[in-house]
């Protein structure tokens, strides 16, 4: 991308034609179409009910207040959601990295009996899956429904991530492992003390992949968990936003609290706080996900 741009500017330095201005204008409009809804959400979360009722179009409140955030945290449900998501990630991330890296390293070894068959077992899960109904019944028979473990376990292996990591391991020079083997190191030792330290880039990418999936996940939790105090952040947000908006078309009175007791300001505050972690990690996410998409052919 960058070399392209550099080369072409060499030909016409500093000349902005009409076309350039048109392109700039279109892109600016598109960027604003993305930014303005975000600004509106943030503005409403910082405005008083009265100010919002007067001007729902605002991009910045005249008298910013943290009332909505205070009410949101006093209500506490969103904090419970945060806590549950953090618990899921604290256990799920190490577990997923363990499952993915052991299998990826095992399958990146030289041919051994059954290697192709096992790889096919992994690949097949990408082509065919039973869907949610039998998974739910299996979860129930394992007595995992109603426990955070259901969400953790279901999310802790992905064939796509495993294949990505396997390809990376295959690109490492075989001589590294050979010399360690001569020194008497076993495969587990080689994986943990030689391969993984060398594999920091792919480990970072895969950690972010699982991290975003855990952070944004909600469907498994909706199916497997029934108690409100167990729900992760996205599900709590869903209760606040989607399920409380029963009749959007007739929601005429903006300052009326809906039946769940959340004002519009509180709703927007909850959207914003759920977004903050993604915003903080965004520069990293952008880089690593682009790499994943370009090497892995399939979308996230």
């Amino acid at each position, binding site marked *: 991308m960058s070399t392209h741009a550099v080369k072409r500017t060499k030909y016409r330095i500093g000349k902005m034609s009409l076309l350039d201005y048109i392109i700039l204008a279109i892109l600016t409009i598109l960027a604003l179409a993305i930014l303005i809804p975000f600004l509106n959400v943030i503005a409403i979360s910082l405005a008083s009910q009265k100010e919002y009722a007067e001007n729902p179009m605002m991009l910045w409140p005249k008298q910013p207040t943290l009332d909505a955030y205070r009410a949101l945290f006093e209500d506490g449900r969103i904090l419970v959601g945060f806590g549950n998501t953090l618990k899921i990630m604290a256990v799920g991330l190490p577990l997923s990295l363990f*499952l993915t890296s052991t299998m990826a390293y095992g399958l990146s070894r030289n041919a051994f009996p059954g290697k192709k068959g096992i790889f096919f077992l992994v690949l097949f899960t990408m082509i065919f899956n039973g869907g949610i109904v039998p998974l739910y019944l299996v979860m129930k028979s394992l007595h995992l429904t109603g426990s955070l473990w259901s969400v953790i376990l279901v999310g802790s292996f992905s064939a796509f991530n495993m294949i990505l990591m396997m390809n990376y391991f295959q690109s490492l020079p075989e001589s590294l492992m050979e010399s360690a083997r001569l020194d008497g190191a076993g495969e587990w030792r080689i994986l943990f003390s030689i391969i993984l330290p060398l594999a920091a880039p792919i480990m970072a990418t895969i950690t972010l992949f699982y991290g975003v999936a855990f952070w944004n996940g909600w469907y498994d939790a909706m199916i497997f968990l029934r108690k409100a105090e167990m729900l992760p952040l996205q599900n709590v947000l869903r209760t606040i936003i989607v399920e409380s908006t029963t009749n959007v078309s007739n929601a005429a009175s903006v300052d009326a609290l809906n039946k769940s007791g959340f004002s519009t300001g509180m709703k927007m505050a909850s959207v914003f706080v759920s977004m903050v972690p993604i915003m903080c990690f965004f520069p990293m996410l952008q880089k690593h996900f682009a790499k994943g998409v370009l090497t892995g052919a399939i979308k996230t």
Partner: protein
Amino acid sequence: MKPAIVGSGKMTKARLRNGNLLTEIWKHRMTYTLLIPGLIWLILFAYLPTGGLSLAFKHYKANLGIWGSPWAGLENFMYVFRDPAFASSVWRTLYVNIIKLVITFPFPILLALLLNELRMRKMKKLFQTILTFPQFLSWIIVSGIVINVLSYDGLVNSALQLFGLPTINFLGSEPMFLPMLILTDIWKSTGWGAIIFLAAISGIDQDQYESAQIDGASRMQQIFKITLPNILPTVTVMFILNVGGLMSAGFDQIFNLANAATQNVSQVLDVYIYRVTFQSSTDFSFSTAVSLFRSIVNMVLLLTADRVAKWMGGDGLFR
């Protein structure tokens, strides 16, 4: 194996082969131990549920479980195919996803062309950052934003009112549901979708542009005669891969943007499965039969898409 026949040549060979296999397995025993954790996961959470699809051919009895319930032949499928809601959910899925695909597909390509033609590198970075951000948010967060902006008293309708235009009921009317899905999908996914096309553009041989410039080609001519033909293979492959997901795409979006007013038009296959399994009177055999139908159609679509993509000279889904 009796020692008496060890002498025969055939058996020795077989034993040797077995012996070789066993030594091979023994030699790689450490590697197998590496695979065990992953295999346990695959068995529990991928292959047990796949085996559980056998429930589609059984009468589910809660006390007997998946494996013990009595066989029912194709009875469940008879009920499934007779359910008008099932057939309509299949057509709704295809209708929604085909129209969505046809309309939204060109946008990432256009955006990639625009970004590529932008001369200011710092602005290009900034635009890319802003435009790709929504992709990383869940559809729950995005529907929070969408419900706020598109609701009756939200940003868009207030602006329409300001200019004296009629307001639009984006969220609560059946005819607006699909246009609203298309609009919000473009908003969320276009920026990210452009990444793969930008990468394809950056892979184009620069000599082509240089000789075109020497020949006096305008920028428009360069776009149409060099850039677009060169990224056509990527465009084709991306389109085919999207076709592979026609039966399962868009669940998160539809599920989180649907409400009571749009109940009928939002019932795609996955929503139907959710509703019959977890909301109405539960008949797990029936739901499993629908699930099996869905899994098979998905697999056929995916494999066909992969074949076609490879045939068109692309990488396909699985390298």
